[in-house]
């Protein structure tokens, strides 16, 4: 709805400026603290639910994306994880990292951790968003199609014929 459409418009933003670099220095220290963590950026950009203005982080150079921890790593699960395993991992991490369960002086750090975990969960627990995300990381890692287990096999099949940047645009159009 609004959230997603607004982020679409962000992509179409006529300004020539690179969006990701533009946002980073915007608000210190808040934006910075939030942004510098690569996992966060990766998680947020893929979490389509969040939409708004997070999308620009997809414009990270490919190798930078690849070096960032994947959403699967955030939740500590294999890429073949079932929906049930994703939910279980999310709950297990929530029990450890939610600000309500940590000591008072760790609340802020844990809030950031939890946002990261939740972003990973909200992407991976939604089959459509997960497929998008899988295509994305597969594209970046340029892995051969056959080697992927389960869900990503479907994703890889879906993106056959859309190499490189073309694929990215196609994926963007479909998901937003």
């Amino acid at each position, binding site marked *: 709805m609004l959230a997603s459409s607004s982020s679409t*418009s962000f992509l179409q933003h006529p300004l020539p400026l690179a969006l990701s670099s*533009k946002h980073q220095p915007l*608000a*210190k220290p*808040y934006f910075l603290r939030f942004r510098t963590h690569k996992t966060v950026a990766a998680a947020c950009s893929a979490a389509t639910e969040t939409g708004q*203005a997070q999308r620009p982080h997809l414009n990270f150079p490919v190798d930078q994306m690849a070096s960032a921890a994947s959403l699967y790593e955030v939740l500590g699960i294999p890429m073949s994880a079932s929906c049930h395993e994703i939910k279980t991992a999310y*709950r297990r991490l929530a029990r450890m990292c939610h600000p309500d369960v940590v000591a008072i002086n760790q609340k802020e750090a*844990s809030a950031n951790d939890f946002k990261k975990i939740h972003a990973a969960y909200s992407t991976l627990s939604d089959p459509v968003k997960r497929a998008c995300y899988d295509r994305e990381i597969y594209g970046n890692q340029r892995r051969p199609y056959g080697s992927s287990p389960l869900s990503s096999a479907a994703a890889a099949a879906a993106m056959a014929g859309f190499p490189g940047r073309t694929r990215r645009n196609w994926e963007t159009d479909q998901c937003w």
Partner: protein
Amino acid sequence: MAEPAYTVASDGETTGEEKSSSAFPEIAIGIDIGTSQCSVAAWNGSQVELLKNTRNQKMMRSYVTFKDDAPSGGVSNQHTHELEMLSGASIFNMKRLIGRVDTDPVVHASKSLPFLVQTLDIGVRPFIAALVNNVWRSTTPEEVLAIFLVELRAMAEIALKRPIRNVVLTIPVSFSRFQVTRIERACAMAGLHVLRLMPEPTAVALLYAQQQQQTIHENMGSGYEKIALIFNMGAGYSDVAVSATAGGVSQIKALAGSAIGGEDMLQNMMRHLLPDSEIIFSNHGINEIKSMGLLRVATQDAIHKLSFETSVQIDVDLGNGLKICKVVNQEEFQEVNREVFEKCESLIIQCLRDAKIEPDDVTDIIAVGGCSFIPKIKNLIMTTCKRQELYKGINPMEAAVCGAALEGAVASGINDPFGSLDLLTIQVTPLAIGIQADGNNFVPIIPRNTTMPARRELAFTTVHDNQTEALIVVYEGEGKKVEENHLLGYFKLVGIPPAPKGVPDINVCMDIDASDVLRVLAGVVVPGSQQPAIPVMEVRMPTVDDGHGWCAEALHRTFGSRLNLVTVQKKMQQ
């Protein structure tokens, strides 16, 4: 009982910082302040226990009676007859009135209550007064609530034999952040510190999560997720929550709520029995108040009876030659309250849709609150959820307060050797929070049902060439237009570098932190620059105190569209 030590004159606000400042050695108690009834519960070391007052009651009527000497509430005091509460000297339904302005329909509906609710319809707080010795003595919902909370606190201190400071309160889903600050102020006036606030159905969800956790050994599929739909309807509010529960974690998927409740049904019935009751009672004379009280009691009794019987005979002499003698049946009651029931149904549908849950996927349906005894309510919940029966393991009147007490124990860091307190609630935002943009549209930045803590941002730009200032007006609610939503605050962004309209990139970020404190940040970037053009503004909300409608109007009158913003999307369309 000790003399109440409330400090009604104090203007001292509970500061949010306090919320997260120190460790809490004592166990926080749970309080459910209902529109009509109130209860207190505490963790006793092995389970949650409802506390009783000196008259051995667990549920106490929520009202405060003003007298010559000192006011007294429904905890310590008991009227020999319901009518005494309706003499004009008692203020009740404060939960419906707190934090509302005089243009609010809920405030207008409260004008038929026996005490005085006066409105000027300009968007300021209503004038509320109790009749003491033929004098209308003014008060505020916060003050009434504070007096009541002082009694509850004294009662809990006697029952638990220790001083009480920390509390977990349940609030309706539809409460705005401004209303929450009013509740916190009332608590501060009563010397209580709000450790956490829980939307009522999420407290029920936590209790359900604990029950599921305890029965884990009995059923084999232990780790499996259970989806619960919780419908809570009391005298003042209706709330719905959909939660996913497993392993003691209650993850709230969606919330929906509205200020619709038993009070609305009562008023509809009163109008049905005496169509011009509002005109007759509008002048609030002594006799009228008495008649109004008689009608209210008779109608209330009739509604209660209709929960068990198909029809009821109402026979009441209101004095002044007004007599009501009528038989009312179920169908009539349902027809009179059709809109109320339709609203309940739409809340359930909306909540399921927001949670992306099909009725068939719901494991248990839990109906709680006083109105859950009404047959029509039970039916509509079961029909909407395509189910034959409701969950039976929860006491509908005690569920919310028990959940609050559990949360109190969890939040106080209490460990239970049997794992009964191995619980966590993952909350979501009950209402969208956004700013005014694209004319007088409300543009949400944090949508409703966003998992908390949360941080979201959205890009805006200027509407005029060389616009150097922008007014950021923050609202909370679900309406498409700003005037349908609740004003939380505003600030001006100044020093935007002059540029053609649509060029400056104004980024507005909203952050709800671990302590549920909302901060709004706004910054400006001009193309070609890597640095923010001006220092970023960070404002804690809500900032607006009273007089919201009035305030929004003043902003509009003074600034018009001069300092407006548009979303970047809107700009693309132009």
